[in-house]
């Protein structure tokens, strides 16, 4: 309740700021103008949302798989870690502008390069948090499982993976939140639809209210994905849930 009031207050201040000066609606529309755009352009937003949602959904899946697999591989093999971890870190410094033509060359103009871009952007938080958590596994726990007859694979599944799961899910939540912006960047090239495309077109046409409406949809989508993972965590890792049960 109080939380809703705080959010309303935030919107109120914004509205007031735009009406008494502010940078003008071409740069920052008021919440009411954005709301209007949301309603007027709902068909357009919905169609583009479906496109972007598909990209994000598939991209996040790829990113999670790549992130987890990378973390496990680097955790298992110190050699691999020394050789490839710096490259993975470095991959985060490669801007889309130099990457995009290469991806188009390799993967064509379809969904391929978009998924690749989302994956490159999103796998990293998952890989880092998961790897760190795997490294932090209590060595005594590993020892215990070995005396109980566990193979290295079993040690992983019974002790290391569950212990690393909460941190991995922190990484996954970061990933889903930034996947949306990843899709926007990915739609820079080779797309004729999607919220990112809409956003840039609207921005280019000074339809700023519509651009912000697209931002609102994107943000709502990111928040939804984020909290969906919070809920999933409660179900998947009941033992890790805080007794207080306060939402993350």
């Amino acid at each position, binding site marked *: 309740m109080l939380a809703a009031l705080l959010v309303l207050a935030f919107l109120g201040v914004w509205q007031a700021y735009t009406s008494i000066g502010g940078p*003008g609606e071409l740069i920052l529309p008021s919440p009411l103008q954005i709301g209007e755009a949301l309603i007027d352009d709902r068909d357009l937003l919905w169609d583009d949302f479906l496109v972007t949602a598909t990209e994000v959904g598939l991209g996040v899946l790829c990113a999670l798989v790549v992130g987890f697999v990378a973390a496990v591989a680097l955790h298992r093999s110190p050699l691999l870690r020394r050789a490839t971890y710096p490259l993975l870190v470095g991959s985060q410094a490669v801007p889309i502008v130099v990457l995009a*033509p290469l991806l188009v*060359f390799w993967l064509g103009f379809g969904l391929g390069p978009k998924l690749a871009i989302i994956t490159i952007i999103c796998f990293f938080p998952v890989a880092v948090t998961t790897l760190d958590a795997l490294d932090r596994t209590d060595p005594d726990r590993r020892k215990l499982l070995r005396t109980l007859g566990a193979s290295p694979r079993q040690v992983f599944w019974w002790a290391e993976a569950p212990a690393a799961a909460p941190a991995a899910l922190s990484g996954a939540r970061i990933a889903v939140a930034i996947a949306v912006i990843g899709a926007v960047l990915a739609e*820079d090239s080779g797309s004729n639809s999607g919220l990112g495309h809409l956003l840039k*077109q*609207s921005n280019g046409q000074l339809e700023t209210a519509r651009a912000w409406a697209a931002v609102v949809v994107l943000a709502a989508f990111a928040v939804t994905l984020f909290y969906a993972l919070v809920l999933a965590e409660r179900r998947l890792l009941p033992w890790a849930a805080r007794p207080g049960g306060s939402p993350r």
Partner: protein
Amino acid sequence: GSKEDDIAGTPQTQKLTLMLDYFPNADHAGIYAAQASGAFAKVGLDVDIQTPSDPSAPLKLVEAGRADLAISYEPELLLARDKGAKLVAVGAIVNKPLTSLMALGKEKITRVEDLRGKTVGTAGIPYQAAYLKTILEEAGVPPEDVKTVDVGFNLVPAMISGKVDATLGAFWNYEGTQLQREKKDPDIIRMETVGVPTYDELVVVASEETTKDRGALVRRFFQALRQGTEQVRADPAAGVTPLLKANPDLDRGLQEAVVRKTLPVFFPADDEDPFGYMDPSQWRAYGRWMLDRGLITKEIDPTSLTNEFLPGAPIGNEREGLD
């Protein structure tokens, strides 16, 4: 170029990937019109229109063979050729510079001289920085009297927020129309009027390989594109409809206004010239300017452009070569 093919005996449909220079907009109205009216299909082309990640991507992807044709800019093409790219301009779709010096009406910048002591926003493109220098020199304004700042693609917002007094890099047909519609009363100075040699802002580029082996493809493309562009000229309101249909996020009012404004430069100034005609002597002059400014390293090559695939152009480049 290969001359064996002609359009009359239309063969089976061929796929053609066309990369735009930027997001779809009014400059591309003729392309979408050709697409929607079936002009491309009639010449046996199945055109796949793609948008690039940044304006340099189309040339790279044509060079790499991932796109058959790309829309680019004359200066960009000359830069690419200077770097050794085997790319050729095969026709213009806008025959004049669009890049301009622009300021909101309240800034009272109507002449280059008015820039003295002002801040100019640029898009961070080196040859446009050279434009600014050229026009300032031409007007006798010491370049150090003008502050420049690279505002990326935020030219219009930078003006609106009052953080720059003028910009160099916005298109008179697009941003100019936009600002007029927003009642910002822009003052626009076109480059070719203040000392920059004229050039073809938007050109269609193909690889040398394509011009050698698949000239018919280009020829058919331009034939259809002329039809599309003529439809737009005949009825601009109806002409932009396909563009808007394909890109529902575009605003009809704005795009139609831009198209009306751009119509004169969609076609060559001289009616004698075929659609898409590029004037080799103008290219030569512009190339020399680039060389003088250190933007390129050598005189441009006559094979940088060819008009041989344009509708109504005689086969071959003999009409008026560079030399």
